[in-house]
């Protein structure tokens, strides 16, 4: 009787814990995507500000990129954005204070909205960037410029990540995405051959004593906090890279990928080694008994047999490389620009989220953009897992 009850209780407990885990994961993903998708419903100017133009201006809406270029004086003529052939006059709220004294604006800037309205009305080529708090009271002669929502291509193909630029921040994920890929792929290029080499050495060549000594040490390495690795990278690796390649700064994509490679190594080694040691003894013996050398046995029998375990090792390694935040944040130089060489400073997606989330006002466009970055990261790692799943399920025979 008691046996029966305890059986049922244990069964229920296991079911419940499974369900809780499932719900938690589902909740996190939904939350991530919900916040992220909100990005595409946000206008591309800082919250609380609006853009005004003269009523006669044929332009009714602008995209964030156009706004940014106008205010950077890269676009100087309305014609470029589809308007009249007239020079653009940029107006920022500071200019009003040069024209009027504080008394003229009245107590608590009471008269400011009115004056701003007049200012805009007086110039038909003006574009004014004004806080909504001081929105011009005048309704005739001026109009609010409609700002286009951020689009998928703004986000995914944009080449500039300037989340705090005013008036119009840019959320182009391309430099971050490429930075992440560059650092991760480089890290894998360094870590994979080395990791598999060590795994082969440990499982096939090393004698029992060495293996028993090395394996726990290597496994211990994967437990070191990433910030410690980052610190090591910053203090040791980065100056080394700088000196070796005669660079002006040592915090580069290369440094980041080296540190990531070191971090991914223990996982790759330990998982791949386990897989190779699981190759049945009978397989090795069969191969050796046919006159195959040890090396032939390793690459013709052991490695193919351990293929799925090895690919698991690779994916765990890549997963660590792509998702790693702290160490990369510390050693890659954090420049959100399109990477052109491995000696550039880059910035990865996780580093961006970690560095900027604290400064992004909750619910704002920047905040949502960071969530969207989270979604991108989520999808990248998912793609890798699926690829790995396919590789490991594919049987040789």
């Amino acid at each position, binding site marked *: 009787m008691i046996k029966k009850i305890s059986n049922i209780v244990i069964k229920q407990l296991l079911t419940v814990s499974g369900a809780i885990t499932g719900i938690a994961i589902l909740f996190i993903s939904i939350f991530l995507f919900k916040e992220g998708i909100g990005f595409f419903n946000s206008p591309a100017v800082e919250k609380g500000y609006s853009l005004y133009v003269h009523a006669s201006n044929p332009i009714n809406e602008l995209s964030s990129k156009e706004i940014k270029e106008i205010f950077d004086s890269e676009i100087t003529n309305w014609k470029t954005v589809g308007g009249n052939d007239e020079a653009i006059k940029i107006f920022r709220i500071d200019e009003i204070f040069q024209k009027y004294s504080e008394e003229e604006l009245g107590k608590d800037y009471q008269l400011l909205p009115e004056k701003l309205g007049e200012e805009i009305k007086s110039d038909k080529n003006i574009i004014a960037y004004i806080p909504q708090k001081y929105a011009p009271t005048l309704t005739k002669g001026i109009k609010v410029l409609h700002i286009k929502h951020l689009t998928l291509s703004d986000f995914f193909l944009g080449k500039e990540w300037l989340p705090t630029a005013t008036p119009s921040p840019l959320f182009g994920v391309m430099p971050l995405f490429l930075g992440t890929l560059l650092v991760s792929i480089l890290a894998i290029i360094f870590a994979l051959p080395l990791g598999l080499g060590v795994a082969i050495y440990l499982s096939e060549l090393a004698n029992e004593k060495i293996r028993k000594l090395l394996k726990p040490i290597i496994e211990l390495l994967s437990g070191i906090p990433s910030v410690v690795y980052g610190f090591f990278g910053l203090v040791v690796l980065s100056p080394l890279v700088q000196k070796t390649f005669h660079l002006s700064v040592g915090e580069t994509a290369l440094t980041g990928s080296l540190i990531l490679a070191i971090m991914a190594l223990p996982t790759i080694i330990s998982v791949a080694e386990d897989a190779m040691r699981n190759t049945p003894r009978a397989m090795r013996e069969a*191969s*050796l*008994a*046919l*006159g195959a050398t040890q090396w032939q046995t390793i690459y013709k029998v052991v490695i193919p047999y351990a293929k799925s375990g090895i690919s698991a090792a690779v994916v765990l390694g890549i997963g660590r490389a792509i998702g790693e935040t702290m160490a990369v944040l510390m050693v890659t130089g954090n420049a959100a620009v399109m990477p052109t060489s491995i000696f550039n400073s880059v910035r990865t997606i996780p580093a961006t989220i970690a560095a900027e989330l604290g400064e992004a006002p909750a619910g704002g466009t920047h905040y949502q953009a960071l969530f969207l970055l989270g979604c991108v990261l989520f999808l990248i790692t998912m793609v890798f897992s699926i690829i790995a799943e396919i590789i490991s399920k594919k049987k*040789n*025979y």
Partner: protein
Amino acid sequence: MIETKNINFYYGDFHAIKNISMKMEPNTVTAFIGPSGCGKSTFLRLFNRMNDLINNTRLEGECLIKSKNIYDKSIDVDELRKDVGMVFQKPNPFPKSIFENVAYGLKVNGVKDKKFIAQKVEESLMAAALWDEVKDKLHKSAFELSGGQQQRLCIARALAVAPSVLLMDEPASALDPISTSKIEELIHQLKSNYTIVIVTHNMQQAARVSDKTGFFMMGELVEYSDTKKMFLNPDKETTQNYITGRFG
């Protein structure tokens, strides 16, 4: 063909083979029988130096194959194993196609000529009496074969590298009676071309297939003589007791 002189073998402190000297003639089948743990498999595995793979072992004495001490420093172990093929207790085909399994030994020994490989594969499968059963599915997985077929595939695999000695470590112990009789038939046929040493715990099998039989116990070779004599009129009482099933 094979001759051992005062062989002693140790696993660590355990004295597994005690001072065994014996001779095996070319083109004969020699069977090793004895209770589990008597050292017969260990002894067999000395002939292709398979015990080298086990750590912490030690060998004393000489083992001559074709009059050469195979434990001499000048011996190339890979070459030795090419000449002394082995079939294991459990069928252990590689996770590859049937064809690739048989071709493996040739390929690792540097044979590149595809025609030659294909020809050898066919010959070996024929010699192992498997050709008719697999000729239409050479490129299917070896794991699709039955246990008995897999074991014959392993024999074909061993034959492909053209050894002169074939070691068989309880080759039929994991098989059903029909597969077993096929393997035994095969051993009869192979005798004309190979020197065969077979370890078996099945005394009827030893009686059926072998010319000479060695009876092992506790690491010692108790008796070694013609199979007929051994089973009809053994010299020692222990042998008599074992054969008649009084222990073991």
